[in-house]
């Protein structure tokens, strides 16, 4: 079984398109597809079939990466409905940026706080709380985004952009935690 490079990612994994998916089913289907497309299975195949299997494996991987996280799924759903995700656009809601700046400042202050690990945990809870709220907002827009409602698409893009900041912040937090552990 082979898929066109333009295959719909949800269809590829046999999932109903939408923000909420069955994660277990996604992982299961991913492993099945990956096994079938594995280049080792094509060791004795023609050069053309070998190339095709590598391309299939890459497509399956890309699709899985896109769908497995809420951020990736949000981006894919929006793009699929025709929304423009312009990463070069630096205009963001000022209140959001100010809150983001404050979170960054709090993160920078963690190593010099009385109990760095406790501060880090508290900050993580705050950031993850924010993230959950954003995921809930996207979930609320799910049907309208699928239907291609322009207003929902615009709102969805704003939530996804905000989620990207939170994602980056959590990466910074993880790397700080690593540093703290290794200093310990």
């Amino acid at each position, binding site marked *: 079984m082979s898929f066109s490079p333009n295959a719909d990612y949800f269809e590829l994994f046999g999932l109903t398109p939408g923000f909420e998916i069955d994660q277990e089913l996604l992982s299961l289907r991913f492993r099945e597809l990956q096994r079938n497309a594995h280049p080792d299975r094509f060791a004795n195949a023609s050069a053309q079939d070998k190339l095709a299997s590598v391309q299939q494996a890459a497509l399956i991987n890309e699709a899985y990466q896109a769908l497995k996280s809420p951020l990736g799924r949000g981006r894919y759903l929006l793009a699929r409905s025709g929304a423009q995700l312009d990463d070069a656009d*630096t205009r963001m809601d000022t209140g*959001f*940026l100010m809150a983001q*700046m404050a979170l*960054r400042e709090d993160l920078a202050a963690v190593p010099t706080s009385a109990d760095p690990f406790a501060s880090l945990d508290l900050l993580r809870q705050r950031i993850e709380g924010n993230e959950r709220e954003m995921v809930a907002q996207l979930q609320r827009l799910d049907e309208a985004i699928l239907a291609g409602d322009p207003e929902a698409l615009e709102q969805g893009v704003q939530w996804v952009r905000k989620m*990207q*900041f939170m994602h*980056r912040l959590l*990466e910074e937090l993880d790397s700080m935690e690593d540093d703290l552990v290794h200093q310990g």
Partner: protein
Amino acid sequence: MAYSDKVLDHYENPRNVGTFENDDEAVGTGMVGAPACGDVMRLQIKVNDQGIIEDACFKTYGCGSAIASSSLVTEWVKGKTLDDAAQIKNSQIAEELALPPVKIHCSVLAEDAIKAAISDYKAKHQG
């Protein structure tokens, strides 16, 4: 990826890091962010009665190129009129700092930040 000497210089000795009081009538604040890398930049200007930028400061959370770009812009705008400061182009910043193509967006962020600060100041003084 290797940073240029100028980027390293601004990164290690950033100029004008700080905050001005946002409520000050003479202050314009520009806040911008890049979703792709999660960088956040705040650039502030202090403008005198003659419409000249007397002082500027910034705070940036991001990579070395983003910090260097904003640091450089705060140096450049001091002594300029608002109109002259609004003419600063990201290509000039990128050239001065010898930014590689993948870091051009950092200079765009700095250009957007100074423009946002100028608009904020002008909005405060309308009417």
